[in-house]
């Protein structure tokens, strides 16, 4: 096997198949409903044309995949410490990535790649444009070799050691392994929000596409609407909500299992290797010093079960990256227990984070949210309720909303804490999911402090720390203390000149 990568080389020839199938699927997905519509509307005689059309698309995608394969080359420039990729079917694009700007290297395998027996390799960079390289087909040894080369830029010459090390990789015992039982618990207790969003998106597309289909079928929409509204009695609504909740839980479980099945973390020289996935196995190698914010969160159920969710946030740059790619920069480790968390934190931060002096917000923290989220809407509702008698029976709900709201805002106030010592900044917040974010002062990029004029006399102000992985806010603190903290952090950042990545 070519271990060097110093000469320009193509990806594995299987890449044509992977790429072709990928393009075909993309086109097919985009035109799926058009096809169905055409299929229904067209007379049977033209059915062959339809098949012919699909065949042509298939042929074209594979032809382009072949061209892509011919033009796609990559190599490692050892002298300049750069990874160079040439690509582009019609226009020549050259992508040069400095090795020290590489954030993480992912080795993935989707179903097709699994069947053929190749791997896909993706490079996440800290480039301002969010341009990333993805090699669609590469065999396993080369993939891991390349990964090593890309991430361990200092040990470039010792290929022997690395191949030896390569064999170690499989044997090395992971220090953290998430069992299926834990995953079940995770699936039942967390990430409802994301699943809800997924469900909503799903329903949206179904309704949207369904409408288009109805147009095609020329079905009477009003008839459907009247039957639907006819079905909506209070009992059916409750059944529907119960069904939705069950579906939500199931989706949550399936997603958790799909993403985190057999999650393992092992230490690997200076880097951490994460691998997980049910159908497509995903391996991610990251170096701990590129983690900007380490975060863990826990809700009431999880506290009872003695587990928590961790996420490691890496730098993300620019708005050009799409949402899901931004998420790719956050590594999530669900269902660790506190000992595993401490171990992981020690590995990333160098030492277990100790709590230093804790700062608490002023009680004025409560004012704005109570006014805008509770007093104002409830007042408006009451005014409406006294004008319109039909709304009156629901006043009880408004009162319940008010009480629950006050309780939630009060909890969020009680949990809003920042704790600072020489090495760490620990920020706690949350209402249901209590999250703890840990940053080291050298990861700070910029600091903003602000104060409303009416808080000047009582010395209350706000603080946000900008890091490459997002902001950390501390609201309604003692402004004198905040200013002192800021001066101290500025001193730490400016006097030491440490790398933040």
């Amino acid at each position, binding site marked *: 096997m070519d271990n060097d990568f110093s000469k320009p080389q193509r990806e594995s020839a299987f890449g044509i198949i992977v790429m072709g199938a990928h393009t075909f699927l993309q086109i097919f997905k985009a035109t799926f409903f058009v096809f169905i519509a055409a299929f229904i509307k067209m007379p049977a005689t033209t059915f062959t044309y339809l098949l012919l059309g699909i065949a042509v698309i298939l042929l074209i995608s594979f032809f382009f995949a072949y061209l892509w394969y011919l033009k796609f080359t990559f190599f490692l420039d050892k002298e300049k410490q750069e990874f160079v990729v040439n690509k582009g079917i019609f226009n020549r694009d050259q992508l040069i990535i400095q090795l020290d700007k590489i954030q993480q290297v992912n080795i993935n395998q989707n179903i097709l790649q699994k069947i053929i027996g190749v791997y896909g390799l993706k490079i996440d960079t800290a480039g301002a444009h969010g341009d990333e390289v993805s090699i669609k087909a590469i065999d396993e040894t080369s993939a891991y070799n390349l990964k090593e080369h890309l991430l361990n830029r200092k040990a470039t010459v010792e290929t022997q050691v690395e191949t030896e090390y390569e064999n170690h990789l499989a044997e090395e015992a992971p220090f953290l392994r998430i069992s299926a039982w834990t995953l079940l618990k995770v699936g039942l207790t967390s990430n409802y929000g994301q699943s809800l969003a997924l469900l909503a998106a799903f329903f949206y597309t179904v309704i949207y596409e369904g409408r288009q289909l109805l147009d095609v079928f020329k079905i009477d929409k009003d008839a459907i609407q009247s039957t639907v509204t006819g079905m909506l009695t209070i009992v059916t609504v409750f059944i529907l909500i119960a069904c939705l909740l069950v579906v939500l839980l199931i989706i949550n479980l399936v997603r958790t299992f799909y993403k985190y099945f057999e999650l393992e973390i092992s230490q690997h020289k200076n880097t951490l290797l994460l691998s997980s996935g049910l159908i497509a196995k995903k391996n991610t190698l990251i170096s701990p010093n590129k983690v900007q914010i380490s975060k863990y969160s826990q809700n009431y159920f999880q506290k009872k079960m003695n587990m928590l969710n961790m996420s490691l946030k890496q730098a993300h740059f620019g708005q050009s990256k799409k949402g899901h790619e931004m998420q790719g920069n956050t590594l999530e480790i669900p269902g660790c227990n506190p000992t595993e968390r401490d171990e992981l934190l020690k590995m990333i931060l160098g030492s277990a984070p100790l709590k230093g002096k804790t700062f608490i917000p002023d009680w004025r923290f409560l004012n704005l949210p109570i006014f805008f989220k509770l007093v104002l809407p409830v007042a408006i509702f009451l005014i409406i309720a006294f004008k319109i008698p039909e709304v009156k029976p629901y006043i009880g709900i408004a009162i319940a909303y008010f009480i629950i709201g006050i309780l939630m805002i009060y909890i969020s106030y009680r949990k809003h804490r920042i704790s600072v010592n020489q090495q760490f900044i620990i920020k706690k917040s949350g209402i249901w999911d209590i999250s703890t974010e840990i940053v080291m002062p050298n990861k700070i990029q*910029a600091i903003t402090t602000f104060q409303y004029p009416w808080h000047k006399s009582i010395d209350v102000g706000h603080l946000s720390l900008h890091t490459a992985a997002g902001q950390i806010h501390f609201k309604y603190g003692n402004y004198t203390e905040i200013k002192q903290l800021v001066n101290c952090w500025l001193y730490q950042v400016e006097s030491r000149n440490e790398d933040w990545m």
Partner: protein
Amino acid sequence: MPADSLFTNETIDLEQLPRYEEIPLKQPHPHYWKIIRINLLIIFGILGVGVGTLLLFVDEVRPNALWIIPVYFALVVIFFLLYYLSFKKRGYAVRTHDVIYKSGIIAESTTIAPLNRIQHIELNEGIFSRIYKLGSLQLFTAGGQSGHIHISGIAIDEAKSIRDLLLKKLDLLENPTTEPEA
């Protein structure tokens, strides 16, 4: 790493640290207020022409003139006032190790970007800025959109000298860190 062996960890007297909040800040150049006025006049001029033509030529709009015209003038006054206040509230300072920028009409916010975290620097000159020999300086950190510093209305010579100073600092910062590694 040589720094490790020499590492000492004395307690820092927090009171002795330089205080960012006590640094005297420089205000934007007075000519910048002229540029703001020109920009506002252009925007409201275009808006005024649009509203005027609507009032003159569309019959349905004409009865509403009674409130449209006062609202328009009220908006003009409000915008001029707001921009004037925001112009008055801005301030910046360049220290040896960081840049400070203060702004905000109601809430006064101060952003501080350490020089060793600045990724790149941009100097922009608009058409009107060029007439008055002004420029705006943008300092980008890796802290995302909110971590950027955008200082407008600096005299172009000063802006250029700040840029050169910062660039020199950035070079100085990069070189000593790369040399010991090699």
